[in-house]
């Protein structure tokens, strides 16, 4: 009997664990270690953040789902990995620390034959002074929609701001990225337009000054270096697409900005031209930068090998080409295909937990040397597809031996769909629906735009909004392992 341990129960880890449990059956063990007791459909946190959905509508308890799937579940966080075992343990193992009530703080070792690291990101609020509380959590100056709890808090603050506007007090909303190296601009993009819509619905749009602040060098970069899409018979850049939407909705923008400090009611920033400035706000939702969760690794003798297993940013090294090279020499082939760790073949990383070889957007620095560029997105559809490919590979290795063919899912051969809603009404909501293929541009295959313009498109309307609704119910249905769940694609 083999044991697969999956670290993380988000989109990628949940996909890996549930498919592996289904394909391996009861002959082998699948263990999930995740600090959370609930699964969260993160894209719908946006609707929680404007009070249009409750936390309960976007989360569900993991324990009964894992029980149904025959998965062993530890509500705990992984602390370290011993991929060679230790002096007292022949087998490789993970040290975990329980987070569930009653066992919180207790540690335990979990041996494994195969390990999938799908821990997702650490929300690194403390990277920006004032954005965090100094203890790794979100501070009091801004709100966030990164977790369901954060989104509930954000909705209360938004409701307070709307009440103030109804009472005749103008409010300044600042939404975007809280650091020069953030990713996940799409979530903030969606949130700013939902706020705009809520203000409109409440009849106070004229009392709201809404501004976007972002580390993108141009609007519509989205951490993917922008894209070109077919719109209205033209191949249009995402810059024009995004600027049109912002201008139409009366949302001002500040781009190429590294948020360097946050205080109550004020952010300080540095721009790509080196200039510095301040922006006042009454309500701010700033996405924090992501980092690895801080897992350590030790060899059999107990020596620290974290630097061998993980990249400096804390994400796990996989089969990518990490050779440092200039932007002009970046290739689609630099991106990983199997997500297998190069040192330990029984370890994989999936979703946000794998270390990308480099940015997708063009690297930028201010004259002061401050890097200001989005880091690559690896959330949503790519996370799910990678998680499933890794599950395939591990199952084949268990059934056919370590030399089994590994399944591949390169982000340079994978598309992604992004549906950013602006409002929630069935007949009044609209959404910017975009697909991009592939996520990482391949200028050798598609010399013009780096992408296939037949499958890279975007439009604004009710249709995208309906799709967003359907995706919400479909993916929660799938994640609960309800009948037919395997038929729903990632």
């Amino acid at each position, binding site marked *: 009997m083999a044991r697969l341990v999956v670290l993380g129960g988000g989109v990628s880890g949940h996909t890996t664990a549930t498919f592996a449990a289904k394909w391996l059956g009861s002959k082998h063990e699948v263990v999930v270690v995740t600090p959370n007791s609930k699964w969260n459909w993160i894209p719908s946190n946006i609707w929680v953040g404007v009070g249009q959905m409750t936390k309960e509508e976007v989360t569900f308890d993991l324990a009964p789902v894992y029980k149904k799937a025959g998965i062993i579940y530890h509500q705990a966080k992984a602390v370290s990995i011993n991929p060679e075992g230790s002096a007292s343990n022949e087998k490789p193992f993970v040290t975990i620390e329980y987070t569930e009530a009653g066992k919180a703080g207790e540690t335990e070792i979990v041996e494994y034959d195969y390990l999938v690291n799908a821990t997702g990101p650490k929300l690194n609020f403390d990277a920006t002074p004032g954005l965090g509380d100094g203890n790794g959590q979100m501070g009091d100056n801004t709100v966030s929609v990164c977790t369901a709890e954060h989104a509930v808090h954000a909705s209360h603050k938004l409701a307070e701001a709307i009440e103030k506007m109804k009472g005749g007090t103008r409010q300044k909303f600042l939404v975007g990225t809280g650091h020069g190296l953030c990713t996940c601009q799409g979530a903030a993009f969606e949130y700013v337009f939902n706020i705009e819509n809520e203000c409109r619905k409440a009849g106070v749009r004229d009392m709201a000054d809404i501004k976007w602040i972002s580390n993108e060098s141009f609007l519509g970069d989205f951490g993917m270096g922008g894209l070109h899409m077919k719109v209205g018979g033209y191949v249009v850049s995402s810059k*024009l697409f995004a*600027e*049109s939407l*912002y*201008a*139409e909705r*009366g949302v001002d923008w500040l781009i190429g900005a590294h948020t360097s400090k946050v205080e109550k009611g004020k952010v300080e920033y540095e721009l790509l031209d080196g200039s510095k400035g301040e922006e006042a706000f009454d309500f701010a939702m700033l996405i924090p930068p992501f980092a690895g969760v801080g897992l350590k690794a030790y060899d059999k003798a107990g020596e620290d090998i974290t630097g061998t297993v993980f990249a400096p940013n804390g994400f796990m090294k996989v089969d990518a080409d990490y050779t440092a090279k200039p932007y002009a020499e970046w290739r689609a082939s630099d991106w990983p295909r199997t997500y297998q760790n190069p040192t330990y073949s029984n370890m994989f990383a999936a979703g946000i937990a794998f270390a990308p070889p480099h940015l997708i957007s063009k690297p930028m620095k201010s004259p002061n040397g401050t890097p200001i560029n989005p880091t690559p997105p690896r959330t949503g*559809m790519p996370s799910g*597809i990678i998680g*499933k490919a890794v599950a395939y590979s591990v199952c084949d290795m268990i059934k056919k031996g370590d030399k089994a063919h590994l399944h591949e*899912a390169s982000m340079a*051969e*994978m*598309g*992604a*769909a992004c549906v950013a809603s602006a409002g929630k009404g069935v*007949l*009044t909501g*609209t959404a910017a*629906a975009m*697909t991009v*293929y592939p996520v990482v541009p391949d200028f050798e295959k598609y010399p013009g735009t780096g992408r296939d313009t037949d*499958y890279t*498109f975007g*439009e*604004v*309307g*009710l*249709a*995208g909004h*309906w*799709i967003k609704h359907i995706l919400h119910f479909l993916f929660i249905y799938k994640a609960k392992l309800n009948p037919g769940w395997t038929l729903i*694609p*990632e």
Partner: protein
Amino acid sequence: MKEEELNFGKEKFSLTMIPGNATRSMRTCVVWQFIRFLVLNVKMIIVVRKSH
């Protein structure tokens, strides 16, 4: 001033394009959007299939 001209004022000149009334109304026209819904779904399914 027409709504689509709002962002092209003397004080706040925008270089982008703003949709006019016809485009805006088509975005919430149920019949047209149902057709777009079908088209978008087919396209997204193709992208999903190409990605696996």
